[in-house]
């Protein structure tokens, strides 16, 4: 019973805090550019408004057009629930849950890409093709990073994997995971969330035809995914598990905030890369994770 309540509470934290992150990113970007920028809570307003709106559906779309975003949203929420939240403990922690975590994120991708193909628009195909192709490299980097954590902690359970102090490859791992975070969440330099020129988009071009509550589910899911990667990155690098709860919670919050500000800074200072350079960047991320894995291997043997 207590465990169930705890899980519910953690879920609430995920659901309620997630839309804050895009607001912070936008705030940082506005600050660097010297603008006032939208309110930090803008996404909450957007979600509330979208939830009350009508839906316009393409004549070609099947029920999968709405089921896709729903499944993707549940998959991201499920992955979030598996991820331990510092001193807040983790959900149903079991051996091998880290692989379920990775594959739930893949399922979310399947749902979004499926919905993108529903409308028969060239834009949907464009976005879905890019998303699933670049995800190949991103997922490889993610598994390599997880393998590094696994070798370093001797465990395949998320809770124990993320608990010990950072290994010798922490810096490499942080850089690699940060690049994966940018790619998986479709941020600059992989994708530009602000642009509305279809030819240059990945995520936005997939969701062009969505409206109303399904769009709200997509936007909220995207925010939750950003938070999820920020939490994963923070816990993989910072030795949070060894401190008293309050310190740990503070460190986690500070880490997530730092990552979010980092995303905003990257977005302000860097231009989006040409698509042919994206694989190069992702390969670099993979190599960073690979070196972290080799260092984890070395570190344990010494």
């Amino acid at each position, binding site marked *: 019973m207590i465990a169930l309540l705890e899980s519910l509470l953690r879920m609430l934290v995920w659901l309620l805090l997630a839309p804050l992150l895009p607001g912070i990113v936008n705030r940082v970007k506005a600050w660097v550019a010297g603008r006032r920028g939208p309110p930090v809570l803008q996404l909450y307003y957007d979600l509330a408004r979208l939830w*009350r709106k*009508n*839906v*316009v*559906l*393409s*004549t*070609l779309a*099947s*029920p*999968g057009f*709405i089921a896709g*975003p729903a*499944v993707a949203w*549940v*998959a991201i929420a*499920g992955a979030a629930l598996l991820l331990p939240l510092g001193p807040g403990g983790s959900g*149903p922690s*079991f*051996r*091998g849950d880290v*692989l*379920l975590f990775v*594959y*739930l994120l*893949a*399922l979310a991708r*399947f749902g979004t*890409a*499926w919905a993108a*193909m*529903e*409308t*028969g*628009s*060239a*834009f949907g*195909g*464009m976005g*879905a*093709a*890019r998303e*699933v*192709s670049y*995800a*190949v490299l991103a*997922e*490889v980097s993610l*598994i390599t990073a997880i*393998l590094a954590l*696994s*070798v370093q902690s001797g465990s*395949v359970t998320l809770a124990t994997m993320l608990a010990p102090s950072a290994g010798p490859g922490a810096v490499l791992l942080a850089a690699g995971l940060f690049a994966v975070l940018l790619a998986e969440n479709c941020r600059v330099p992989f994708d530009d969330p602000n642009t509305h020129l*279809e030819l240059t988009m990945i995520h936005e071009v997939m969701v062009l*035809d969505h409206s*109303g*509550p*399904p769009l709200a*589910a997509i936007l909220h899911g995207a925010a939750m995914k950003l938070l999820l990667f920020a939490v994963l990155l923070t816990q993989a690098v910072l030795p949070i598990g060894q401190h008293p709860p309050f310190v740990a919670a503070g460190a986690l919050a500070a880490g997530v905030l730092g990552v979010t500000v980092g995303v905003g800074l990257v977005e302000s200072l860097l231009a989006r890369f040409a698509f042919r350079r994206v694989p190069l960047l992702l390969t670099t991320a993979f190599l960073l994770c690979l070196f972290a894995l080799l260092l984890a*291997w070395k570190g344990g043997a010494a």
Partner: protein
Amino acid sequence: MTPALPLLLATLSLAAAVVLGPRWPRLWLAGTLTGAAAALGAALLVLTGGPEWEWRSAFAVGGEPLHARLDGISALFLALVSVVGAAGAAYSRGYWADDRYPVSAPSGRRWWSGLLLSLGFVLLSSNGLHFLMGWELFTVCAYFLITLDRGRRQVRSAGWLYLAAAHAGTICLFAFFATIAAETGSWELGPMHDRAALAPVFWLALIGFGVKAGVFPLHVWLPSAHANAPSHVSALLSGVALKMGIYGLVRFSGWLVLPAAAGWVVIAHGAASALLGIAFALGQNDLKRLLAYSSVENIGVVLIGLGGALLGLAQADPLHPGGPAWGRLALAGALLHVWNHGLFKSLLFFGAGSVLHATGTREMSRLGGLWRAMPWTAGLFALGAMAGAALPPLNGFVGEWLVYQGLFDAAIGRGPAAWAAMPAAIMLAMTGALALATFVKAAATVFLGAARTSAAQGAHEAGPWLRGPMLALAAACAAIGLAPVLFWPAIARAVDTWQPAWPAGAAPAPLATLGIVQVAFALLAGGAALWLWRRAHARGLRREPTWGCGFDAPSPRMQYTSGAFAAIATGWFAPVLQPERTLRRPRGPFPSRAFQLERVPEVVLERILVPLSDAVLWVSTLVRRLQHGRVQFYIVYVVAGLATLGAMVALEGNR
């Protein structure tokens, strides 16, 4: 109850089906289904903990008494044969019906039951000679099933390629069994752990069974055979017949003393098969060819697991006589994936068959928007695609989850095997992501969007004979995904048969917890989809044409095609895939036709084997000129020969 009775029943009803099949389709269906059910019953008796069953005949066949053995491993494969065999038999009744194919449908029924019978014979026989006989029968039955529609040229050439490749593999198996028989002095098969001299024959088995399993680069026959065979045959070939190669490898790697490098070679082959197989699958434009290449990938995944188990076995010490526990985990994953792939690939081939039946084309870029005409097929194909992409909460994920855990544990163990396990895990991750791209492409291009041609517009839903087997297979996929713990005892039985030294007992991975999580997830996802659907309808839902970016005359041809969807990722594999692009740009103020064609060739076949065999043929034509039937040249040869002999004698005499 011993499995003897159900096995006898299965043999008799299948034999009756072979005899009666061509004339009486209903009796045939009844006989085949009864036979499959009885065989499944026998397999389940052993898998649920019953004793192994062994039987020797008093009479001899080919000079050897029959020796049948049903243990955990053969029961596992027998169960798969019966399930897919029965589903395919029912499917063929709607798909390859007498009124459409009056000639080939009756003979197809005979070969189908014959194939099931010979597959069962291979799985049960424990005598090298009979194994080879069954193997050959199975190859021949499969050949006639592939070429049912032999009026078409592609079908004939695919069948010929299959037959040639299968026999190249059979030669290795002949050598394999003959060497064993020569060493042991008998054709009888069984554990041979005391004969270290037999270790090198494992390589023969790897090639012989590898050809049948379709391991890269021995897969050359597979794509065209599976694409051109009737779809129920493709399902049986991909889902079950390939697994016979895996059966051979699992069976004999458990019985033989293995060379030290066996695990390394198997895991490397598995990883290469998985990655390259799925890369080729992504590049295909033909729906059934794509599914065929995805089988190469899945065979690779199974071999990664088997290789992991072999590596674990090589690390055995007095404390752990079977090697570390991760070997057990990897083998369990591999064997579960044998079932999983058999089920979801048959489902997908049935789905592809329904599409082919409804539209007459396998070319994905000619289809589109089929979900409206065939919602059942679309939904079931989508489920199969999710299982094929190893997504939770379906069965494909559970098998790969176990394999991954075996690899991760091997890496954590920090033994020498970690250097194989870490690259294999990374390549498996890449395979998984590419499989997702492949199946999104396949399902979405065929079923979503707008119809690209009139053929796709005139589609109709598959009939009940086609839908029923698909529903049954989809239910099996969902059951293994949602309640994996129920299937664990069967897998454990096979694993313990393979390596009895491993401590038997509970699942080494929390399958029960995973099952609960998957069920909860499936319920939540379904609930969320329903809720969002109702929410979207709550305030009145409007239907409008797809937004065309201000363009008023959109055409279905503006949708992404299968080649366009795959172009980014196939570009990365260009050195291996060697995609062919024909591009004609629009030119001039009034441009005429412009197009871009993309095709991924059969690289191993077209770029390596065909040039190689062309060279061999060229040399043989040169040699053939020596012998062309003109008498005067033969007289010259004789005279020259005599002269040479004479010269030799003369020179010898002088010395």
